[in-house]
């Protein structure tokens, strides 16, 4: 059984789609040498016309991709730093996302925005460590946050084939995970995955936090039976799948590596309590409100949602509901 890393799964997905469809091409900064280690070897294999380095002109190349999509291509843009999405939020949200409706259905904008290394890479400080997936979910752009190598492959392939803009956040905390993989297949949007079944509480974990949630569930196994639910796409969100899980367990804890106010954790909780009567108040573990990640490693870690916080939240939820 071949062992595949998350990072290599992304490369495989890009290579397979470039090979499968002439319309696919990659655009980004330093992608020909593969500075992110995700596009390694692709320029040599597919040529620099289809694996194109751009100048540092994020706004222009993001809208360039919109134009290319309007003319029938399927661009994949790589952003090495998640904060660059703030710079091109206008181009993605106000143009790529809005064109189909504003033109009365005359066009599609099938662009994929890939952000390998999203969230904290320790020591990258304030402007390189954000994880802004909630912003895209809020405006209704398809937003994908895979946790495992197989899902990274399957969701990136689906994103590239999808006819609307899709942002794929590949969390830094997941990039080096590996797993044994037999089959690499497309993964549908809007369908969550239960990584571990349990009876007492459903923990929703996004991206790399799935691995933390699984570790905590294992640690607490003799005290609490924890179900770990990974939405895989935060927009569209698999509310049916989650509702089914919470209806069984009756308790909900969400762990989300983003700021607290208006984060996806709040949306998940609201959506569940609209449908299910819980046994205890739901809880969320997130970064603090308005957080900016400090540089020093101990401070960086202090701001990110941690395993201890998650374990505490699970215990409190159990106590509240007992």
């Amino acid at each position, binding site marked *: 059984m071949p062992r595949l890393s998350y990072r290599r799964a992304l490369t495989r997905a890009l290579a397979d789609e470039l090979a499968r469809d002439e319309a696919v091409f990659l655009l980004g900064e330093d992608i020909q040498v593969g500075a992110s280690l995700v596009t390694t070897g692709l320029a040599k294999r597919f040529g620099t016309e289809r694996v194109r380095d751009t100048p540092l002109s994020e706004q*222009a190349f993001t809208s*360039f991709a919109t134009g290319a999509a*309007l003319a029938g291509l399927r661009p994949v843009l790589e952003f090495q730093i998640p904060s660059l999405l703030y710079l091109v939020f206008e181009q993605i949200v106000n143009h790529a996302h809005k064109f189909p409706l*504003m033109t009365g259905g*005359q066009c*599609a904008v099938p662009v994929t925005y890939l952000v390998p290394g999203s969230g904290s890479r320790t020591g990258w400080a304030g402007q390189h460590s954000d994880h802004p997936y909630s912003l895209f979910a809020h405006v209704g752009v398809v937003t994908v946050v895979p946790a495992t190598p197989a899902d990274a492959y399957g969701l990136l392939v689906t994103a590239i084939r999808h006819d*609307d803009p899709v942002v794929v956040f590949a969390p830094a905390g997941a990039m080096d995970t590996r797993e044994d993989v037999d089959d690499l297949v497309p993964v549908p949007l809007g369908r969550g995955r239960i990584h571990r079944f349990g009876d007492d509480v459903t923990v929703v974990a996004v991206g790399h936090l799935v691995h933390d949630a699984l570790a905590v569930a294992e640690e607490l196994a003799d005290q609490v039976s924890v179900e770990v639910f990974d939405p895989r796409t935060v927009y569209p969100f698999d509310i049916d799948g989650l509702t089914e899980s919470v209806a069984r367990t009756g308790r909900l804890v969400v762990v989300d590596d983003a700021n607290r106010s208006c984060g996806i954790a709040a949306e998940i909780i609201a959506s569940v309590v609209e449908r299910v009567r819980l046994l205890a108040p739901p809880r969320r573990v997130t970064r603090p409100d308005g957080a900016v990640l400090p540089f020093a490693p101990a401070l960086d870690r202090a701001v990110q949602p941690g395993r201890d916080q998650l374990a505490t939240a699970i215990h409190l939820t159990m106590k509240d509901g007992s």
Partner: protein
Amino acid sequence: MTDADQVRLYRTVRLIRRFEERAVELVHGGQIVGGIHPYLGQEGIAAGVCAALGVDDVIAGTHRGHGHVLARGADPARMLAELCGRVTGLNAGRGGSMHAADFSLGVLGANAIVGASGAIITGAVWAHRRWGRDTVGVSFFGDGAVNEGMLLEAFNLAALWRVPVLFVCENNGYATTMPVTGAVAGSIEGRAAAFGIPAVQVDGQDPETVRIAAAAAVERMRAGGGPELIEARTYRFDVHHTFEHAVRLDYRPPDEVTRGRVRDPVRIQGERLTDTDRAAVDAEVEATLDAAVRFALASPEPDPADALAHLYASGMTARTGGG
């Protein structure tokens, strides 16, 4: 320029002029909600540039975009229906004045974000070329846009990758109420020169002059040249937006407006025609627009149940907001 070319150019400027005048009437009559940015006075630019293009070329315009769409050959009746928010509109009533698009004619949409068309059209033309087509593109924008970073980044990309895009700056002297002299350091041509993009300044009030300059640029671009820029000097005869008819903004001296209106592209082009030809075009345009107004006002309004139709090209649907 043949007589037929001259008549065609006149027909276009006259059509845009009367379309805009009829649209302003419909704004005041309450049939166009939200108002429009009239293109009155600037018709020669859209007419001249689009006359130099082929059927497979692509354009993208601005919030003041009716002229570009009409000059490309869009149906005035469907365009007017769009402004009135009807299902028969070019965009099925979803785009309105600032987003009118007709992809069947290579009109990739008017864009309400200043300077946005430059990079979009560069990407579109680059893609068409990759498919082996001979496409060139036009990005229309105003003098205000030359201070937008996104547009200058697009200049760089187009020049660097030799994408045949004609950047057409419609310099009407004002970005809303901000005079160009108070907004643009250096010059508009100088912006292009900095990227190695050939630039010319032309009289935007003379449709033939614009057409000749655009045709020369398009010919060079098709022969393998990279992008070019035309700065067309023009004057906006009316308001920035029709809301100004209700609120009085004091920013253009009355004598400047009077002087500006003297060089009228419709009159200038009309004088090149015989009286008979001109009268025939005028009558034809009037009949076209009478029919367009009737069509627009008789067209059904969209069904509110379909308010978010076309949100996702993939067919995905969104959760509703209520309940």
